[in-house]
């Protein structure tokens, strides 16, 4: 009996010790997953593998080294039409803009994508998203 309480106590301490930021990050990941599945998975696929030479992958890609996070936010919001090289392979299709996605949505999306596919699994904060979107080219 005592044991059970001890474990419970430890768990509660554990949870409350988790930083606020980590809790927010986890919320973003969950929300971001929904956003990804409704807005992006049709092209980039649920697992981020892309579709042949038409839609580039978001998993196992040099994207995370090649593209700055602020640029990424702008691509998601405003779409892209340039020729790009992903893992050395050229892509030049058209990615539509997502005018409906707000700064918070983009922060959540990017936090989710980082969690799944980037080596850097940190939060992309709402402030960073706002700042990036204000300074899109």
């Amino acid at each position, binding site marked *: 009996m005592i044991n059970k309480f001890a474990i419970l106590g430890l768990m509660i301490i554990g949870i409350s010790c988790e930083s606020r930021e980590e809790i927010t990050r986890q919320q973003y990941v969950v929300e971001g997953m929904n956003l990804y599945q409704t807005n992006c998975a*049709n*092209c980039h*696929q649920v697992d981020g593998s892309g*579709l*042949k*030479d*038409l*839609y580039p992958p978001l998993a196992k890609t040099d994207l995370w080294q090649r593209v700055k996070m602020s640029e990424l936010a702008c691509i998601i919001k405003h779409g892209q039409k340039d020729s790009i090289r992903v893992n050395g392979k050229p892509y030049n*299709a*058209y990615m*539509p803009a997502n005018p409906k996605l707000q700064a918070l949505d983009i922060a959540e999306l990017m936090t989710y994508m980082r969690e799944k596919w980037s080596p850097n699994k940190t939060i992309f904060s709402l402030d960073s998203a706002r700042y990036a979107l204000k300074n899109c080219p």
Partner: protein
Amino acid sequence: MQQKRIPLSKIVFVFLVVLGCQQEKKLPFLGPKEVGKQGDTLYHKIPDFKFLNQDSLWVSQKDMAGKIYVADFFFTTCPTICPTMKTQLLRIFDKFAEDDRVRILSHTIDPEYDGVRVLKDYAKKLNITSPRWNLVTGKKSDIYRLGEKSYMVTAQEDANEEGGFVHSGAFILVDQNRHVRGIYDGTKEEDVNHLIEDMTLLLKE
């Protein structure tokens, strides 16, 4: 424990019923039916058509004669359901890669933008090859009429829709004699599994 014997006649009966059912499983004929002169049923049929494919070649009902095919309607710049539909069609393409009795016929509903060159580029990126998979373009009114009257799907321009068109994500299964035998939701993986099963069944007819 006492064992109950099941009489042999019962087993045989059940066996026959199961066997009978399996043989009877046949795909329906869809669309409006008419009664012919001899009182026979005339099933809805895809009329003659002629469109240009990604290799600048004409594709008509003659190229589909004796084949079963899956038809769909899409456009290359479609942001919403077309990519999902193409993912699913690629599964079918791969699944029946060795079978020359199977074709895929994708009609663009944005022929003004999706000319032969755009279709060729799209095909190349997805590794789609004719004649097994034709991406076709033509006169807009012809494509829309064929879509609505013959394949029984909606395809319309609509400035309010994302991408500028409304269209259903349907896959239409057509048999060797131009009859529609099934309509599936091309955006749902399970529905497409069902379609693949039905194609296998149809190939046995």
